[in-house]
């Protein structure tokens, strides 16, 4: 048989009013869950804003260009300058074995080292692509990609057009003007000549788009930072409300309990319990109830933190409304940010929640317990 003590009595008292305690514990649990979830939401928002800032800093220049949907024939006024093109060559230069690929090298190709490793082929070997045989003239190291980089081959454009069944077709054509002042004129000529097939973007257009995008990113970043500030303010208000609600729930429950048990208080005092004894019993009961609520709150907090923070905090996704700019790029950007906002309470917050629960339990039951302790035993004994 267990020995009697103030804790035992407090536990018995808490457990003998199961339904009431259950309801109060659930209500308190939700308040505490809010307290747990909101800081987690704030951390997630901060991380999201940080990610956004980093994304903005490391974002690549978008590859804006024009495309041609059907064969492009000779364009009047545009000349082919091989020396100029060489300096803008897209061919890899870091050849690790064999030789580079030159213009007109039909039936030959350059292969990335990771692809050559994958197939076990080397310089001089023949490989079959879409039924055509090509000899490997050189192996190159994919720049900055390492072994996990893109596995690819480079070949003469006419060979590529043939094996893919796109003879004479281009997906993109870069045109360089010798004189910058002629760019707009050339662009107009090309667009006029191929109005149904071409979409021309000049360097200035690209620059403007890039500026627009940078501007948009800057705005986005500012929006996110402003949202974060707003989120923090809202979170502070909500935490204050949750703390207030928790304290009030404990306060009213304990006031009701004290009133309901007035006669018991009278008996305790009549048999020699001091004011402090009576006060401590009611405070311990309040704290016990709050700790139980703390446990419930932690469970709700762990399970429901993402949902609670989503419901209670302003949206941290700056792309929640349509934005101007490059559609593909912004979508990716927005999705990445949106997905990164997942509030997960850390163990410290959970531990702190227990402390806060105990503190609020003590705070909420302080006045009712004090009132209980001040009850006149004679009056209390008369209470029915």
């Amino acid at each position, binding site marked *: 048989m267990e020995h*009697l003590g103030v804790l035992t009595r407090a536990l018995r*008292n808490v457990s*003998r009013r199961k339904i009431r305690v259950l309801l109060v514990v659930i209500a308190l649990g939700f308040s505490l869950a809010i307290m747990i979830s909101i800081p987690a939401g704030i951390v997630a928002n901060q991380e999201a804003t940080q990610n956004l800032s980093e994304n903005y800093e490391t974002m690549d220049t978008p590859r804006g260009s024009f495309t041609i949907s059907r064969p492009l024939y000779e364009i009047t006024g545009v000349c082919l300058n091989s020396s100029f093109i060489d300096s803008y060559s897209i061919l890899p230069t870091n050849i690790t074995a064999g030789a580079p690929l030159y213009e007109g090298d039909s039936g030959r190709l350059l292969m990335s080292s990771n692809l050559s490793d994958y197939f076990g082929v080397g310089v001089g070997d023949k490989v079959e692509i879409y039924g055509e045989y090509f000899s490997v003239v050189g192996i190159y190291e994919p720049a900055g990609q390492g072994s996990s980089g893109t596995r690819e081959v480079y070949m003469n454009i006419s060979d590529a057009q043939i094996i893919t069944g796109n003879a004479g077709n281009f997906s993109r054509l870069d045109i360089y003007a010798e004189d910058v002042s002629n760019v707009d004129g050339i662009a107009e000529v090309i667009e006029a000549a191929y109005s149904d097939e071409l979409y021309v973007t000049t360097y200035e257009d690209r620059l403007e788009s890039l500026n627009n995008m940078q501007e948009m990113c800057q705005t986005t970043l500012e929006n996110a930072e402003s949202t974060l500030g707003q989120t923090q303010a809202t979170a502070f208000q909500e935490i204050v409300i949750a703390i207030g609600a928790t304290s009030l729930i404990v306060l009213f429950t304990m006031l009701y309990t004290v009133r309901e048990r007035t006669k018991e208080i009278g*008996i305790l*005092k009549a048999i020699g319990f001091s004011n402090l004894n009576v006060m401590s019993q009611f405070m311990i009961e309040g704290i016990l109830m709050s700790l139980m609520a703390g446990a419930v709150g932690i469970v709700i907090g762990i399970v429901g933190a993402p949902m609670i923070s989503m419901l209670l905090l302003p949206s941290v996704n700056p792309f929640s409304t349509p934005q101007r700019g490059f559609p593909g790029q912004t979508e990716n950007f927005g999705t990445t940010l949106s997905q990164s906002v997942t509030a997960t309470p850390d163990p410290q917050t959970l531990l702190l929640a227990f402390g806060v629960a105990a503190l609020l339990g003590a705070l909420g039951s302080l006045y009712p317990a004090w009132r209980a302790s001040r009850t006149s035993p*004679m009056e209390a*004994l008369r209470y029915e």
Partner: protein
Amino acid sequence: MSNLVLKTEKLHKVYKLGTRKVHALSEVDLQVRKGDFISIMGPSGSGKTTLLNMLGCLDKPTQGKVILDDVDVTKVHEKDLCKFRKYKIGFVFQTFNLMPYLNAIENVELPMEGTEKSKDKRRKRAQELLEIMGLSKREDHRPQRLSAGEQQRVAIARALANNPTILLADEPTGNLDVQTMYEIVRLLSKLNINHGTTIIMVTHDSQVASRAGRMLFLNDGRLLKRERKGMHLMKGELTCPGCRKKIQSNHKFCPHCGKEL
């Protein structure tokens, strides 16, 4: 006098009901010696419970003194009165007032909480008291599983837990049937005779009151001068309420007329 355990001097208690003053007690002088078994009788509103509350340190008089073990408790600060209630007074109530969430032995242990007694000693003392009350087999029963008489016996055991100077019983038989009523009165008599417990009992019932050693009468807050001896005499000897012959206090039945005592 060395064996005087409780004394009141010109005790007055005045309540205010709106603008009206009600004299609940007037000039009550009472002397209680160690081992006394006193019953206080009086009609409703005569001040019986008020007097008991003064003697039990639950209330303070408007005027006068209550001297308990040579200390005027009317001068003791409220926060220290709990010690008097804990160690000097044992209360028995009409409605038993046991804690419903504690079993019999825990109820008896309750007043010992916070005393210097170890947990084991508290348990042992509670067991001893329940044995005296004939409730050894009911230790782990909660009040709702005990009969009214058993509940009152647990309440008496609880009142005696800290071996108080005086046991105050407020209508202890008021909620009991006749048979249980006599059981409880007999138990109080035994405690008084066998254990020397000083008892003050307030009651409406003259038959119950007559079982005490001294019968006092209270009317309109005044203690009447007439005082009667009860049927029970002190220490070892009793008078059989049936045949009025003297008998030993340890008898359960009168050897002369066979009446259950």
